[in-house]
């Protein structure tokens, strides 16, 4: 159970559960609540500990802005620099980009970076807090939720370079459709949260999830229409039908295509596809929440 042996360790907190304040608490080995009960518990956990989530989010943002000269300016520079790398790679070396390729690319890089960095942070959000988990009784679900919510800020910062690109270079592509970006973002957030809850719980039991995720995310990136557009996949349907169908089943096919419709093409996204992804994501979120709550009692023993 380690913990106590760590060098130069710090003194304790006092775990005191608010629930034990006035009401007697009885803990038994008796059966835990069923799926619906667990989901209700998760909802009340998140709501009753919203202040803790807020503190965790702000601690997370502070940690990311530290020790660098530019601090949070990196949230603006990161997606831009990544875009530059791919623009050079694809226009110069492969010389077959779409029209206005930088904007085409940026419209997909921005949400993809949001997803991949949220997943990266959330994976270790539970296993990285092992000491608190072993000493304080609190709902662990706040940890991945806070990690996922912290990612939103980085995404929001990305709108600064996006606006810059649009105003300075592609003003002819500005359209009222841009207003609907938050709608697509909500769909993405639901999916991201579901994914993060699941992997953060899994990583407690299997630490290789975080190693695996680096490669899985890279594969996922190339299998999603970030560097290329949906038209490339349509062309693939003839030669590699199975792969093309798999890419279309990927939620990020619809999500990134929707962003691109709003930002780059200035037209309505495929609402039907987006609605389907939202439906699937909500089911996935229920599953992820249930899975997290189901495994939660084991965390303190395993960590």
């Amino acid at each position, binding site marked *: 159970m380690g913990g106590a042996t760590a060098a130069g360790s710090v003194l304790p907190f006092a775990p005191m559960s608010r629930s034990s304040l006035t009401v007697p608490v009885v803990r038994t080995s008796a059966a835990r609540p069923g799926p619906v009960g667990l989901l209700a518990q998760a909802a009340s956990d998140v709501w009753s500990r919203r202040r803790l989530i807020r503190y965790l989010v702000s601690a997370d943002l502070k940690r990311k802005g530290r020790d660098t000269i530019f601090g949070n300016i990196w949230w603006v520079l990161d997606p831009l620099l990544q875009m530059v790398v791919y623009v050079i790679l694809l226009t110069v070396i492969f010389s077959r980009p779409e029209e206005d390729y930088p904007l085409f690319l940026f419209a997909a890089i921005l949400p993809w970076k949001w997803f991949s960095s949220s997943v990266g942070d959330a994976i270790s959000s539970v296993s990285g807090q092992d000491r608190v988990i072993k*000493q304080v009784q609190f709902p662990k679900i706040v940890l991945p939720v806070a990690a996922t919510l912290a990612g939103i800020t980085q995404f929001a910062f990305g709108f600064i370079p996006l606006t810059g690109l649009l105003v300075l270079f592609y003003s002819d592509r500005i359209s009222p459709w841009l207003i609907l970006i938050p709608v697509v973002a909500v769909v993405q957030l639901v999916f991201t949260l579901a994914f993060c809850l699941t992997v953060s719980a899994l990583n407690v039991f299997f630490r290789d999830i975080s190693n695996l995720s680096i490669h899985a995310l890279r594969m996922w990136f190339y299998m999603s229409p970030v560097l290329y557009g949906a038209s490339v996949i349509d062309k693939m349907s003839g030669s590699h039908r199975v792969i093309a169908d798999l890419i279309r089943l990927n939620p990020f096919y619809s999500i990134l295509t929707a962003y691109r419709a709003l930002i780059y093409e200035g037209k309505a996204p495929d609402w039907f596809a987006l609605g389907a992804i939202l439906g699937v994501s909500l089911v996935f979120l229920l599953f992820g929440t249930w899975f997290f709550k189901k495994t939660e009692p084991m965390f303190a023993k395993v960590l």
Partner: protein
Amino acid sequence: MIARRGREGALTPTGPAIEVEGLGVRYNLRLTRKNTIRNSLAQAIRRDGAGGHFWALREVSFTVDRGESLAVIGPNGAGKSTLLQSLAGIIEPSEGRIDVRGRMSSLLTLGAGFDQELSGRENILLAGAFLGIDDGEIQRRLESIIAFADIGQFIDAAIKTYSSGMRARLGFAIATSVEPDILLLDEVLATGDQVFRAKSKDRVLELARGAKAIILVTHDMNWVSEFCNRAMLIEKGRVVAEGQPEDIVRLHEERSREARERALSAAG
């Protein structure tokens, strides 16, 4: 039974503060620290039955009445910390039941969840939120915590700049800032420099006087006789004996001497 489990909980004057019945905590050895998929696969293929379960506690029953102070002693790995974790609600019982009446606070084993990048003040708020203390209460206690920790102007500097002594003081100040009905203590009493140690001992004594019940886990037998009016000896997850502190301490010392001798003769 029904009368004892009154609706008013902590305010109910009758009934013990803590009641533990047939408590068992089982660890699944397949799911332990630093597990990897490879290990799990290997285990699944080998199907070694021996690697199944481990009972950290088994058939533990006791009650702590109001006004009582119970010392839990035993050799390393006997399950003392697991017992405190179960009482604090961090670990769920695998069998049996735990009945706790009153506001509980525990100073468990060393090591706290401070965030290195946050200031001392922010860490107090974060810790309060982890502990589920409501905002108004922690704001009210903020100044007294800062004063007790005696950190001076560093309270607004990031915790990573603190010395280990300062961290220890801050942790202790937060941990003891709320007066609980039931106090769980686990060997946190001897920390910090001489001055702070005396100060923290006073604070623990003060809390102990205010608390309705105390459970203390320690290797320091002086604390047992000084603090507690009852003691319980645990070995290998089971209660060996329970009774007067002096008797239990003597029994523990005899048994650990025997164990040492056995180990020596086995080695020789």
